[in-house]
């Protein structure tokens, strides 16, 4: 008996050893992966797309970051430790010693202060998309080179996770002083990889930074991001030319790749904090009329569409302003009562036609401005146009390249009619997801251009509300009004499927394709 137990013990130990050996990171290698679109410019604070995060993020660090294995646990990136005061009004961070920028200058609290001042109070000519989220910060103090203190004017439920935002790249204060817009065309951070080159239309490459503050990391010698999408990307994965595509695949693509790669493919799936929304330009007739907007929202068969589209696209779940499945989101029973979410599509369509007739827009014609990234913009765009066609509305489909698409919506006197925008974030957090629905003067990512103080007030109230039940009640009210007014309407939420080549180790899926992309922890077998 004892011998058997001893043998089993040895076997177990041996097994554990071999497992550990298989899981020991190996240094070296060049990671090749695909990115479906190109970054419009190099400034983190002004970006919102994966086209930016995937190639550029490895060059930068943030104060905190998410642990991708135990998501949404937050760990320190350049921050060694941190404390939050009991009243929730003071956040103190202690920085790691000896963190270097790629030009060998040492990181100090001045850089953190400069970065966050730029985010929350962007100087003239600088675009900071997340300004609103940091409006509660009153001052940032730097008592010594390794300590930063943030003081808030009121408690904010999401402030700690704000500091883990992958968009808050830390810039060098010295460079920002010379030119606040320096990061838009130059890359210099504290991240694991230095910038090598960007050949437009082709690829982006980075090399290991030997002075990275985490000793032994990054494991890779460098990375090469190829700007390919669609069939070439699937072909490349199937043939083992590239190791991954970090955004997400459709179920059809996944099946295709798995069929070809067999056991060399590793599939990871997860819900996704990402959805497409239709933004109506309320500054333009007839989208200033609430009846027209609501009618167009009612005319979309979200349930039927999700069923059909999930076969070929990355969309899957029907939900409102928050991700279905998130504990603060509206459960299905209540969702069915909201405009645009009823299962009886014929009744909704009849109501929509009546609203359009009332508004005198029965023969409405407009252009839907869309992005030229095929997945899932094209199928969803075609789906929406077909739905609206059944209301008698004639819609022209215009697909623009990422840079032009964003510019069309972001510019001061936008002239688009309706746009198919994306609302994605790095975590489930109403303070993030709802920013798109706030008034134009309060949120840099609102493209509908409306001014609705009721929604703004509800947002402010819920942002500091630490009692979950009260917060849910406020969120329901917000959602009800937002869907009634239909300035920006949700369509279908996405489902994340990632197929990796089994040679790529150390990468773990999270519900956000913005998280975990600094590539410091991945290695090639």
């Amino acid at each position, binding site marked *: 008996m004892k011998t058997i137990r001893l043998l089993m013990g040895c076997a177990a130990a041996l097994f554990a050893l071999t497992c550990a050996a298989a899981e020991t990171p190996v240094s070296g290698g060049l990671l090749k992966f695909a990115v479906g679109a190109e970054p419009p410019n190099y400034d983190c604070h002004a970006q919102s797309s994966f086209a930016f995060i995937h190639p550029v993020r490895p060059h930068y660090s943030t104060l905190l970051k998410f642990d991708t294995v135990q998501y949404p646990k937050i760990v320190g990136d350049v921050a060694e430790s941190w404390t939050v005061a009991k009243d929730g009004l003071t956040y103190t961070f202690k920085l790691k010693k000896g963190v270097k920028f790629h030009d060998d200058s040492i990181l100090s609290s001045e850089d953190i202060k400069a970065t966050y001042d730029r985010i929350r109070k962007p100087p003239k000519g600088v675009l900071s998309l997340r300004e609103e989220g940091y409006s509660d910060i009153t001052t940032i103090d730097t008592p010594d080179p390794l300590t930063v203190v943030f003081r808030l004017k009121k408690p904010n439920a999401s402030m700690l996770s704000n500091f883990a935002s992958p968009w808050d790249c830390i810039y060098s204060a010295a460079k920002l002083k010379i030119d606040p817009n320096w990061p838009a065309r130059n890359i210099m951070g504290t991240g694991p990889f230095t910038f090598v080159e960007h050949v437009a239309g082709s690829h982006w490459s980075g090399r290991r930074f030997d002075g990275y503050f985490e000793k032994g990391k990054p494991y890779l010698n460098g990375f090469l991001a190829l700007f390919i999408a669609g069939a070439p990307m699937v072909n490349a994965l199937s043939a083992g030319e590239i190791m991954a595509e970090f955004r997400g695949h459709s179920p059809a693509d996944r099946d*295709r790749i798995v069929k070809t790669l067999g056991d060399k493919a590793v599939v990871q799936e997860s819900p996704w904090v990402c959805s497409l929304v239709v933004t109506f330009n309320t500054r333009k007739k007839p989208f200033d009329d609430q009846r027209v907007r609501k009618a167009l929202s009612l005319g979309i068969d979200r349930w039927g569409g999700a069923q059909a589209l999930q076969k*070929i696209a990355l969309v899957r779940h029907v939900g409102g302003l928050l991700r279905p499945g998130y504990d603060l989101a509206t459960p299905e029973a209540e969702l069915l009562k909201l405009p645009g979410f009823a299962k009886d599509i014929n009744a909704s369509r009849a109501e929509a036609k009546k609203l359009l007739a009332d508004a005198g827009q029965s023969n409405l014609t407009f252009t839907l401005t869309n992005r030229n990234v095929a997945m899932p913009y094209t199928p969803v765009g075609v789906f929406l146009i077909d739905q609206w066609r059944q209301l008698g509305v004639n819609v022209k489909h215009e697909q623009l390249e990422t840079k032009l698409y964003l510019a069309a919506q972001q510019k001061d006197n936008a002239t688009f009619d309706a746009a198919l925008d994306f609302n994605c974030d790095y975590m489930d957090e109403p303070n993030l997801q709802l920013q798109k629905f706030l008034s134009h003067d309060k949120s840099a990512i609102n493209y509908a251009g409306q001014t609705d103080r009721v929604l703004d007030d509800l947002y402010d109230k819920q942002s500091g509300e630490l009692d979950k039940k009260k917060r849910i009640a406020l969120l329901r009210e917000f959602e009800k009004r937002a869907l009634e007014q239909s300035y920006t309407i949700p369509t279908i939420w996405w489902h994340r499927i990632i197929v990796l080549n089994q040679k790529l180790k150390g990468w773990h899926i999270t519900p956000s394709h913005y998280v975990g992309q600094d590539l410091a922890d991945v290695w090639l077998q």
Partner: protein
Amino acid sequence: MSAVTAVLTYKLPARRHPVVQFILHQPLGAAGLVSIVIMALAAIFAPWVTPHDPLAVDYESMLAAPSWQHWMGTDSFGRDVMTRVIYGARTALAVGFLASFVGSTAGAVIGVVSAYFGGKIDMIIQGAMDILLSFPIIVLALTVVAMLGQNLVFGVDVNLIIAISIPMVPRVGRVVRASALAIRELPYIDAARAAGFTNTRIIFRHMVPNVVAPYLIMLTAYVAQAILSEASLSFLGLGVTEPTASWGLMLSGAAADFYQQAPWMIIFPGLAISLAVFAFNLFGDSLRDWLDPKIKI
């Protein structure tokens, strides 16, 4: 013995209709012509010939393989491929004929004028043509498209037709000019001028009939080229746009994303382009052999 004079009876060959003669002498060309006619008929009577609506999006059966319901399968939006191929013939033939007609006619007129007037006018026109000839066909077409954008008139993109026809003008002009030059040297032109006939009359009554043969040959050849140009431009996203059915468009976009799992999406439109161009080339070749085998195009 009386001398019997052999009487040679000479039978005149039967007078057959030129078209019938053409079919007998040039069977390949006739086959091409028949294919063209079938395509044209299918395109004109498309709504009656096709089982589905080319724009009907059907989310239930996306990327479906060929079946009895959908002979050529469906694309990524559930639209019937065969229907879109037949409607695509409309786009191809309409753009093809119009572009070729506009380009060839303009080229022919310029060629004749240039040949007739000669001298300085000829030099200037030839210089301009040389400049246009310096651009490869598709580069010129693309640049014009980039310049002009899209302009729909009665559902037809006029700017696309202009873009495709412009490269044809100097090429047709060159060939027609060569033919017209051959006549200009003949004495009866001088005689006509001496007799006081107007330039227009001389051009139309004497030169034009002589250039009809090369003109028709170029016209046919360039319909094929125009169909290819339209397909290429639409493939690049710079020609016809969604949701119009066009063979080139059917090969781009969603097709480029899905063609490994749904190869029928690209096989049939590509075959359609090839067969159409093939038919026009066959017909054009035979036309040339029939009308003027010596012509060097």
